[in-house]
Each structure stands twice: as C-alpha cells, then as structure tokens.
C-alpha cells in the first residue's frame, strides 16, 4: 500500500505476501447495522469509535482490561502494560462495562485481559459477575505464570465459570521466551497447562510471531498443542504489529503477513497441514484473519473439517458474527469429562448412542488453527476497521475496535487508550 500525506510525505506499507494472492483472500458480506450506537458520526472513521452508526459488524468478542499491572515487561506489548502504579478497575466500573456490552451487543464472548488479569485476587468474582449479567462464554487472556504457580487459584476460576484460557505461548524453547519476554517461561507454561487439564479448562495457545525469533517454530508449536489435546483446543497466531510498546519501528521486510504464515505452516509441517485447508473469516474483514478446523486422528494426523469457503456469493455479516461466536464457544471451551457417567451416559442421562460418540469426537478431538493480523498506524485500512468484531470496552462503556484502541503513532501517542 502506498500512502501520501501533505505534511509527512510518502509511505509504503506491506499488506500481504505469499503464494496465495491477496485478491483471492476475499469473503464478501452484507454489512450489519449497529442498532444501539454509543457515539455519533462526527469527525469520521476512525475518530468516532464507540461503536458509531457507520460500523459494519457486531461484537463477537468484547475485551475488558481488568488491570494494567503486569508481572512481565515484554519487548512487544500492545497494551504497553506494567504500569504498576495504575489503580485496577473497581467492581462497579467492571459491572457498568459488562452492562454496556450487553446493551449494545447482547450475549457475546468476553475476554478478560490486561495487563495480566491473574494479578487480581478477585478475578473469580469478575468472572462470576459476567456470567450473572448473562454472558455465557468468558475467557482469560494470560501469560500463565500465576496459573502455573497457584493451582488453588485455577480451581477458584473454574468454579466461578471460567470457560477458556487464551495462553500466551510463543514457542517450544526458552531462547524464544528470553528474547520476547525477558526470561525462561516454558516450564511455567507447562505447569499452567497441567492445572488447566486438571480442572477441564479449554486452552488456546497464542504465539506472538516475530520474524527471525519464532517464525521457524510454528510446526513445533502445533505439535506441542496436539500433544496437549483435548485440553489445548487450538493455536491462534498473532503476527507482531507495531503499536503499544515495540522494540523498534517496523522493518517491512521482517513484517509477517497472513500469506507468509500460511506458507510457513504448510512448509514447516511438510504439507501435513495444507494452505488449502485455511479459510477467510465470515465475521471480521477477510484480510484480518485465516482459520482451519481439523479432526485429530491417531499419530496426530489432522483431517481438515472445512473446505475453503466459496469466494462467490455474498453472506450476511450478522450471520457471520453469530457463527463466529458459537464456533468459539464450541471449539475453545473445556470439556467436562470428569463425571463418572461420562463414558456411558450423555448429557441427558441416557445411554450413549452412535450420535453421542460422534459428538464426543467432534467436541474433544477437534483442533483449530487460526491467525489474526492486527493493524498498526503503518498499514491501517479503514474498511477493516469498520468490519471489526473484536472490541475493547473503555471505562465509559464505549466499544472501540481492538486495533483502534491500541493504535499508536510513531511517537507512541494513542487516540483511544488512556484518553
């Protein structure tokens, strides 16, 4: 993409690279309408976020940053966290934020984020409050340190109704953690997985992918995830974006695009996972993500469960949001396998039949592999912003598209965070 500014001159940004052409990565949608916008259109996109009446997609996931404190100080951090002097949000404020999401978007998926949310001792109360207000799926976005160290805490979160953990997991060796997170963390991540396994909490491994640091470890991460199935439900890659706290300004050659990641996965897995098994999303803008669903067979073989969606035809964005929400709930939640009846009885207490066995296979042995490319100030595309379904809730209860909430300029100034 080439851009020019009368004040700052001309810029070039890399949007896509790889063997799948960008023109083929499309999924046309009829825009959704925001029925209860929180802001009016005034200055134009992206300065009226709230959501405004011109936004084109409903909330699939709402993020609430329950603290800005953190027990790491990573070189890449979109939240620029570790501001340990900030006050955590009060329960009253969190309640207002939950209620605002419910009023605007209804029962969508909630992600409790930060900072590091597990630094709060009352996180279980925040989870319980969310369910009470009517949210059926609540996920915690964590580095896993406390979840590894404190089993009683994990038990408490499960009892409060925690459905899923979005676990920062950058690679399968400590060299990667030392470079990205400043210390060895693999052992504590494994301990966190053991605790989630013990309490049947579904886990998604979330690597921040940075060129020359961990982009050659993708197949190892996928294999590691499969070793931990069905506790681990999938891998969700986030190629590094340049907002918040970043070590250097972007070198466009080193920037990883979705096309790059699909090619790397196919090459590193020696075509055990083919790029044809990936689809563009039906919820957010096609250029924001890819995903594939698989059935896990013996020897960790993966059978693709969705063929690439048709590129012709138009779908309703609203229907895409409904499907994406339901998909996350089904595929990323823990399976309560511990009940003694599980092997012989279904959820209604009847003897299991063939259909129950099929459902067990689908629920316990399915695997999702996906990636989302966030936008930064260099590659920003307002069409993608308007189609965004991942919204951060601010303390006024406004819903801000994720990339806009985290967007910072060259000097680190943001338009929404801390405003």
């Amino acid at each position, binding site marked *: 993409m080439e851009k020019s500014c009368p004040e700052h001159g001309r810029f070039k940004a890399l949007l896509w690279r790889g063997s799948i052409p960008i023109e083929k990565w499309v999924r046309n949608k009829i825009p959704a309408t925001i029925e209860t916008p929180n802001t009016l259109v005034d200055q134009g996109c992206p300065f009226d976020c709230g959501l405004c009446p011109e936004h084109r997609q409903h909330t699939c996931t709402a993020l609430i940053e329950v603290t800005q404190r953190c027990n790491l100080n990573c070189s890449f951090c979109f939240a620029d966290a570790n501001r340990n002097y900030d006050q955590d949000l009060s329960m009253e404020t969190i309640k207002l934020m939950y209620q605002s999401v419910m009023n605007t978007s209804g029962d969508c998926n909630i992600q409790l984020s930060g900072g590091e949310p597990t630094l709060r001792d009352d996180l279980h109360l925040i989870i319980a409050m969310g369910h009470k207000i009517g949210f059926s799926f609540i996920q915690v976005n964590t580095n896993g340190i406390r979840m590894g160290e404190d089993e009683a805490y994990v038990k408490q979160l499960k009892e409060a109704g925690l459905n899923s953990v979005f676990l920062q997991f950058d690679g399968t060796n400590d060299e990667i953690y030392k470079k990205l997170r400043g210390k060895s963390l693999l052992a504590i991540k494994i301990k966190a997985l053991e605790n989630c396994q013990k309490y049947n909490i579904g886990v998604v491994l979330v690597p921040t992918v940075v060129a020359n640091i961990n982009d050659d470890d993708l197949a190892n991460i996928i294999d590691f995830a499969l070793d931990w199935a069905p506790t681990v439900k999938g891998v969700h890659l986030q190629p590094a974006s340049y907002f918040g706290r970043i070590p250097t300004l972007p070198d466009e050659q080193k920037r990883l695009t979705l096309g790059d990641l699909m090619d790397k996965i196919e090459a590193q897995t020696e075509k055990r996972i083919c790029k044809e098994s990936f689809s563009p999303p039906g919820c957010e803008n096609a250029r924001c993500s890819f995903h594939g*669903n698989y059935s896990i067979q013996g020897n960790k073989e993966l059978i693709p469960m969705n*063929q690439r969606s048709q590129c012709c035809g138009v779908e309703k964005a609203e229907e895409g949001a409904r*499907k994406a929400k339901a998909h996350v709930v089904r595929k990323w939640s823990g399976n309560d396998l511990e009940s003694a009846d599980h092997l012989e009885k279904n959820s209604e207490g*009847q003897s299991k*039949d*063939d259909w129950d066995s099929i459902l067990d296979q689908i*629920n316990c042995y399915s695997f999702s592999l996906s990636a989302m490319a966030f936008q930064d100030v260099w590659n920003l595309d307002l069409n993608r912003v308007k189609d965004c379904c991942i919204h951060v809730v601010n303390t006024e209860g406004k819903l801000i598209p994720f990339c806009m909430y985290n967007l910072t300029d060259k000097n680190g100034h943001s338009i929404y965070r801390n405003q």
Partner: protein
Amino acid sequence: MKHESNDKTKWLCDKCQRELELAKVKVRYMEGNFEVDLMKCPTCNQVFIDEALALGKMKEVEEGLEDK
C-alpha cells in the same frame, strides 16, 4: 449403541409397504463420515429420520461441524 427414540410407532415404507428396521447407515456431512443406526426399509433402503433426532443430536452434530 442404538438411537433411542421415545416414539415407539412402527413405521412402514410407503412405497414397499415393508416395516422399517434399524440398520447401519453411512452418514456424510461436510468432511465428516460417520456410521450410525437408523430406521431403513429393507427393500428399497430408504432411510427415515424422525423429528426428535433431526432437531436433536443430528442438529447438534451439524452445528459442531459448522464452520464460522
């Protein structure tokens, strides 16, 4: 391992006038292949799926395989 329906009605194949019997049937949806017991005409192999199954477990399986 049979599909249990509360409906104990005996079903007849309209075309063959034969009573349907439980038999293994191969089901394919999306990329999933499954074998399940379903009511089937022993002559023409027409399969019958009752409403409870269609709106119950079968729908659940379909949703489980549904892409986003």
